[in-house]
C-alpha cells in the first residue's frame, strides 16, 4: 500500500505538513504567507479576525483552525479573497483610531504590515473616530484602546501563559471591547507586570511598554527592510 504524502497545495504550490498542524502553521513553516492577525503560534487558535480565510477544496474556512490534510487544494492569494481581506482591514482601520504616522508601533505593527502587503490604499469607509481614553495608570505599561483590534492574544496569554487573567473582552458585536479585570477597571490596579508575556504579545500598538516610544530608528524596525511576506519567507529559511 502506498503511503499518502503529507502534503497539500497552497495556490498550486506543494506544502509539506506534520500531522496535527493547521494549514496556516504548515504554510508559515514553509515560508508561505497567508495574511492573518489573531493567530499566535504559542496560543490556541481561536479564529476571530477571519483574515486568514482561504478556500479549501471549494469551501471557505479559517486557515488558522483547519487542520492540514493530505491532498487538500487551498486557495489563498486570489483577487477575490484578497479583496475581501482588504475590506476587512478597512473595517478594522475605521472602527478604531489607527493613525500610523503618529503611532510608535509603526514599522513594527502587524496590522500596518498586512495592510501594506494587501495594498490597502485608503480606508474606504467613513472613520468612526471613537473616543477612547488611554489607560496609563500602570507604571510600566500603557494601553491605548484606540488601536485594539480585539484579537484576544493578551487575554489568552495572560490567562493561559501568565496565569493572571488580567484582560477580557466584554460586550457583543460592535460594542465588544477590551476590559481590565480590576475593581477600578484600571491596569494600575492589577498585578500586571512588564515581565508578563502578555505585555509583549499585542500585534498592534495597543499594549505598549512605557517610555520606549520611537527609540528604534526608522530603518531598523521589523518591517522596514522586508515586507511581512518576505519576513515570513526569511523566518522559514532561518528555521531550516
Amino acid at each position: 500500500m502506498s503511503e499518502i504524502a503529507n502534503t497539500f497545495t497552497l495556490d498550486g504550490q506543494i506544502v509539506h505538513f506534520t500531522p496535527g498542524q493547521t494549514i496556516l502553521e504548515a504554510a508559515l513553516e514553509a515560508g508561505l504567507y497567508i495574511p492573518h492577525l489573531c493567530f499566535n503560534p504559542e496560543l490556541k487558535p481561536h479564529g476571530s479576525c477571519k483574515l486568514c480565510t482561504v478556500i479549501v477544496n471549494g469551501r471557505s474556512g479559517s486557515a488558522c483552525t483547519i487542520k492540514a490534510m493530505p491532498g487538500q487544494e487551498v486557495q489563498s492569494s486570489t483577487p477575490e479573497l484578497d479583496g475581501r481581506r482588504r475590506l476587512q482591514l478597512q473595517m478594522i482601520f475605521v472602527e478604531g483610531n489607527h493613525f500610523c504616522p503618529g503611532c510608535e508601533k509603526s514599522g513594527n505593527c502587524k496590522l500596518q504590515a498586512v495592510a501594506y502587503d494587501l495594498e490597502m490604499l485608503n480606508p474606504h469607509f467613513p472613520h468612526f473616530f471613537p473616543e477612547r481614553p488611554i489607560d496609563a495608570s500602570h507604571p510600566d505599561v500603557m494601553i491605548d484602546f484606540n488601536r485594539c483590534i480585539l484579537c484576544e492574544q493578551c487575554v489568552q496569554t495572560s490567562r493561559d501563559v501568565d496565569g493572571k487573567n488580567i484582560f477580557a473582552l466584554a460586550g457583543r458585536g460592535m460594542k465588544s471591547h477590551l476590559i481590565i479585570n480590576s475593581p477600578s477597571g484600571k491596569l494600575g490596579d492589577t498585578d500586571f507586570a512588564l515581565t508578563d508575556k502578555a505585555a509583549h504579545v499585542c500585534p498592534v500598538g495597543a499594549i505598549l511598554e512605557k517610555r520606549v516610544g520611537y527609540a528604534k530608528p526608522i530603518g531598523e524596525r521589523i518591517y522596514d527592510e522586508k515586507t511581512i511576506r518576505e519576513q515570513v519567507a526569511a523566518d522559514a529559511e532561518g528555521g531550516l
Partner: protein
Amino acid sequence: MSYLETAESPEKLRRLVIDPVSRVEGHGKVTILLDDNNKIHQVRLHIVEFRGFEKFIEGRPYWEVPVSVQRLCGICPVSHQLAAVKAMDIIAGYGAITPTAEKLRRLMHYGQIVQSHAVHFFHLASPDLLLGFESDVAKRNIIGVVAAHPEIATQGVLLRKFGQEVIQHVAGKKVHGTGAIPGGMNKALTIPERDAMLAKVDDMIAWSTAAIHMLKKLHESDPDFYNKFGEFDSNMMGMVRGDGALDLYHGGLRANDADGKNIFDHVDYANYESVFDEEVKPWSYMKFPFIRTLGPENGWYKVGPLARVQVCDFIPTPLAEKERQDLLAIGNGRPSHGALLFHWARMIEALHGVEVIRDLLNDPDILGTDLIADKGARKEEAVGVIEAPRGTLFHHYRVNEDDVVTFCNLIVSTTNNNQAMNEAIRSVATRFLNGREVTEGLMNHLEVAIRAYDPCLSCATHAIGKMPLEVSLTDLNGKIIDTRFKNMLGA
C-alpha cells in the same frame, strides 16, 4: 454661534474646535470695507489656523508627542518635532542632551530651514517676483517660472531636495520621520550618509547665494517699490544665542521696536506666559499675540526671517553675514519693514542653513554614538521653543504622573505674525486698491503681501504657487458687493 462668545474661557474655546469635521485646511479670507467712492475703510485677513490640535495631544503619552505633533504641518514637521522634544527632554527628566545629539538635531533643523525656505521662495514666491504681480495669471506659477527661468527652477528643486535629504538621513524619512526622542536622538549618522551630504554642500551654497543675488538685482531695479511694498513699522522678535548671534535652534528671545531699540533681551522662553498675551478678535479664528508690557495696541510684532536677521547682532556664518550686511544697508541704520524684504532675508537664512549644515558635517561630533543624555527626575511642565522657518514656535506641555499630557498650548509662527499680516495687507490695500475697482492683478498684490510672510496656509493647500484666498468687497452696511475667489480648495 460665534467663536468669540466662548473666547472668554480658553477651555471652552478649545473644546469647540476639536471636532475634526470642522477642521478646514488653510483657508484665508480678506475682507475690505469700502464706501461709495471705493474709499477703503477696513481691511481684514481672517485665517483658519490649525485649530484644536492641542486636543489631539492632550490625553496622549508624552514620548509620543514629538512625532505625533508633526501631523500639524506637512511642510515644517521637523520644527514641531523639535519644539516638542525640547519640552519633553525636560519633562522626561533629562538635563542637557549630549553634544552629538544636539548637533544631529541642529542638522535636521537647518535641513528643515533650507527645505522650507527653498519651497517657499522658488515655488510660491518666485512666480510673482520673476514674472510680475500682474502677469498672466495662467502662467504665474512655478510652471511659468520653469519656462522663463529654467536654471533657477532646477536649482530651487535641488536645494529643496537637499534639505529633505538632510532630514531623511537624520530622521529616517523626508516627512514625518522620528529622529529626536526625549533625551536625545535615536540614530547615529553614518560616514556614507555624512559624505553623501557633504558632496552636495558646495553647490547648495552657490545656489542659495545666487538666489540672494537675483533678489538683490530685482531690488536694484526698483528699490523704492521693493522697500515700500507692504511696509509698516512694528516690533520684531527672534531667538538669539548668548553672544547675540542668530540661532534658530536654541537661545533667548529678543524683541526690538521698529527703530531697532531693544524691548527685551535673552528672555528665557520658559517664561513666555509672563511676557506674551494673546488677544482674541471677533472676526478671526486666529489669536493676536502681543508683548504684555506694551499692550495689545503696541505690543504686536513680526517674527520670521526679516525679524530674525535684523534683531540678531550677527549671523555666525561668514557668507550669510556678508549678505545680511547688504540687506541692513538699505535701512541706513534703521530696521527695514517692507514685506518683500522677507524674501531676501529668507534666502539669507537658507544660505546660512547650508553653511551650518556644512560646518556640522565637518564636525567629528556629528558621527558620535553617544546619543542619549543621563536621566534625572521627571518634571510636570515644560516649554520648548524653536525658530521654525516661519518664525518663533512655542510648545508648552503639562504631563501628569501617569506620563499623560494634560495640557498643551501651541503658538505657531503664523499666529505670531497675525497682526503683522493684517497690517501688511492694509498697507498694500491703501496704496494700490484705494478708489479703484478690484482686478485680479490688484488682488494678487494682497496675496503677494500675505505670501511674503509664508503663512502656514500657503503650504497646507499643497497647491503650487497658489494660495486659497477669498476677497469680498462690502459696503458700509456690510452688504457684500463683490466677491472673488481664487484657488479655493475644491475649486
